[in-house]
């Protein structure tokens, strides 16, 4: 259900069928139609008009069924005419299309020195920010809580965050509720479970009872994926093992000092543990959930609404950088651009192994997994729904949750869609997709059923 399909069409399918938008028999047909539609667009102006009109239409009738009833009774043309009575569609379209002057050119963006931040970081040395007229300083920050506080108190205009953080901040879990947005995902995949070299022979998770694990933050994909992985193997993450929040560099040091048995952490720390001979990579998170989101680009709702043009330019830079990072042939160049002390401060060979996906696993093998880490900016709202099911599963949030509502409010898929198009990419035409985690299918439309299907969960 993208902003780009026509909400004035009363016969548009509501449920996903053969393709991602549900209007075609197969994905191939869908893409062909998509291409045709693309070339049929006469002008930018026309396209923006469609976008704005459909956004307004959706805002007035958020329920598909109600909109359909309305359209059926009055007809699409009348509906559009009626709409423009209340809302100056022309002006809104112009404002949206032209972008207008930047409200602020000098921006500060905070990041944590891990490979997940690659697009945010590389956009500075590789000129993606300056191309869009921005002068962005990327500032290394000491931890997730600090990055949260510094964005909340406006020292940073926007920041690198873990994808569950904007949801947690918006819902007020672990901090005061403040409307937050996540217009782009930074990276997908890119994490791993690393174990101490002394556990070389304990490859079966069932033998991990009593292990001590580290994750970087409570509200992180790392925490949810580790818990998920353990629970699927019959271990209760709250009683059978210990999971602590530990800053990534201390994970490697603790692994070497035998204080922890393993961690599910961000790179470069997994590869660094191998590089330093302290650990081995047990499993990449892409093998738990292929294409899972990890880190994100986040900004407060206030920034998005008070500086729309700056926000647009910033997001565009990030999306362009992400698109560049997605291409395998650029990865070596990126590794060298972000290795210096000003950015990640790591040996280039470590970053190269992570980004190119040809790496030493710590057990004596050279593994090739080209999409060990990948970059895809589209903030699927179903990712947010999955994250919220896990937050509830482990007792971080309680009660009835408006999964789809919060997801749509925080994961700004429409902005990403527009800017991806401008950057010459083909964004998906829906905002939700189903996927499977360790072979178990997730239907974003039925979060509670999914949640209830787990045997191991925190009793609440």
């Amino acid at each position, binding site marked *: 259900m993208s902003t780009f399909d026509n909400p004035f069409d009363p016969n548009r399918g509501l449920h996903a069928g053969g393709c991602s938008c549900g209007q075609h028999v197969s994905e191939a047909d869908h893409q062909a139609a998509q291409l045709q539609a693309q070339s049929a667009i006469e002008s930018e102006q026309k396209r923006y008009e469609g976008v704005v009109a459909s956004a307004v239409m959706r805002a007035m009738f958020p329920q598909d069924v109600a909109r359909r009833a309305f359209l059926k009774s009055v007809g699409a043309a009348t509906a559009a005419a009626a709409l423009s009575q209340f809302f100056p569609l022309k002006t809104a379209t112009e404002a949206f299309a032209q972008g207008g002057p930047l409200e602020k050119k000098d921006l500060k963006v905070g990041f944590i020195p891990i490979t997940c931040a690659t697009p945010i970081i590389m956009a500075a040395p590789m000129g993606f920010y300056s191309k869009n007229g921005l002068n962005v300083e*990327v500032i290394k920050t000491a931890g997730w809580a600090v990055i949260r506080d510094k964005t909340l108190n406006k020292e940073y205009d926007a920041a690198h965050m873990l994808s569950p953080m904007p949801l947690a901040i918006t819902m007020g879990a672990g901090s005061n509720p403040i409307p937050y947005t996540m217009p782009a995902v930074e990276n997908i995949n890119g994490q791993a479970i690393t174990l101490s070299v002394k556990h070389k022979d304990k490859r079966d998770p069932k033998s991990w009872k009593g292990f001590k694990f580290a994750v970087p933050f409570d509200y992180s994909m790392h925490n949810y994926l580790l818990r998920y992985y353990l629970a699927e193997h019959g271990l209760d993450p709250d009683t059978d093992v210990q999971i602590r929040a530990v800053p990534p*560099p201390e994970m490697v040091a603790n692994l070497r000092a035998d204080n922890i048995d393993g961690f599910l952490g961000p790179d470069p720390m997994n590869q*660094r543990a191998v590089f*330093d001979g302290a650990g081995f990579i047990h499993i990449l998170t892409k093998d738990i959930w292929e294409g899972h989101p990890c880190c994100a680009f986040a900004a407060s709702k206030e920034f998005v609404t008070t500086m729309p043009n700056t926000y647009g330019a910033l997001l565009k830079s990030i999306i362009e950088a992400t698109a560049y990072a997605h291409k395998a042939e650029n990865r070596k160049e990126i590794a060298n651009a972000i290795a210096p002390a*000003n950015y990640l*401060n790591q040996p280039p060979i470590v970053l190269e192994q992570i980004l190119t996906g040809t790496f030493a696993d710590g057990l004596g*093998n050279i593994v090739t997994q080209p999409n060990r880490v990948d970059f895809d900016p589209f903030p699927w709202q179903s990712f947010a729904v999955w994250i919220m099911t896990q937050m509830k599963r482990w007792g971080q949030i309680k009660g009835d949750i408006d999964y789809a509502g919060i997801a749509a409010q925080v994961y700004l898929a429409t902005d990403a869609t527009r800017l991806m198009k401008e950057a010459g990419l083909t964004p998906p035409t829906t905002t939700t997709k189903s996927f499977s985690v360790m072979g178990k299918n997730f239907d974003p439309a039925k979060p509670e059923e999914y949640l209830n299907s787990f045997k191991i969960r925190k009793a609440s």
Partner: protein
Amino acid sequence: MTSSLRFRAAVVSIVLLAAFLGIWHLATRPTSAATNMSPEYAKLMGLTATQGKSAMPGPLDVGAKLWEHLRQPFYDNGPNDKGLGIQLGYSIARVGLGYLLAVMVAIPLGFLIGMSPLISKALDPFIQVLKPISPLAWMPLALYTIKDSSISAIFVIFICSVWPMLLNTAFGVASVRKEWINVARTLEVGTVRRAFTVILPAAAPTILTGMRISIGIAWLVIVAAEMLVGGTGIGYFVWNEWNNLSITNVIIAILMIGIVGMLLDQILARFTRMVTFPE
């Protein structure tokens, strides 16, 4: 006699240092190199894994790295990579500012408390409660209310260096010999003049001792505060190098912190000697 003592002490110091460096060097010697590792695999691994290099750097590694830093103390490669000199400069400036604010508050207030038993009794409970609070406990509160990390860092320096100065000033003022004050009274010296010409010189050594303790605490705190808020300063440098797992640079930073702390203390010690009078 004294010069010979000084000479012997220097010799013992050097011997101790040499012994320390020697043991350090021996303890961090590489163990046997890893065998049966394919060359392609070895290329992807670090020296610790391939050549059995100790995870802890030896004195020679630290020395080489230190020389590198000292040759270029003021380079600036963007917001996250600045020379050691610049980082130390930021920290010293923060400490200086917070400390100066503390002096401006603590000495007048300490004077007041020392001269007036009423105010002394009235403020005592507050001081007793606020004094033992760890400076870092103030940090989240400061960040949250001040909403600016570098001002928060300065505030934390201020709040933790104010107490020793305040208490020492109050104590010094209160324990000025009664005879001297009585003499001043007999000569009909006014309160203000009495404070400046009698009490201040008499209490100066105690006040300066308080200031000396305070600068030490301020320097202790700045490193921790900067590690927490990040950005610039020697504390941030330590955190950044720790993030890179570069123990060599962490050791160098520790050495630098120690040296600067010693210099700050020596400066205050010299002032103390200047105002101390033989009885």
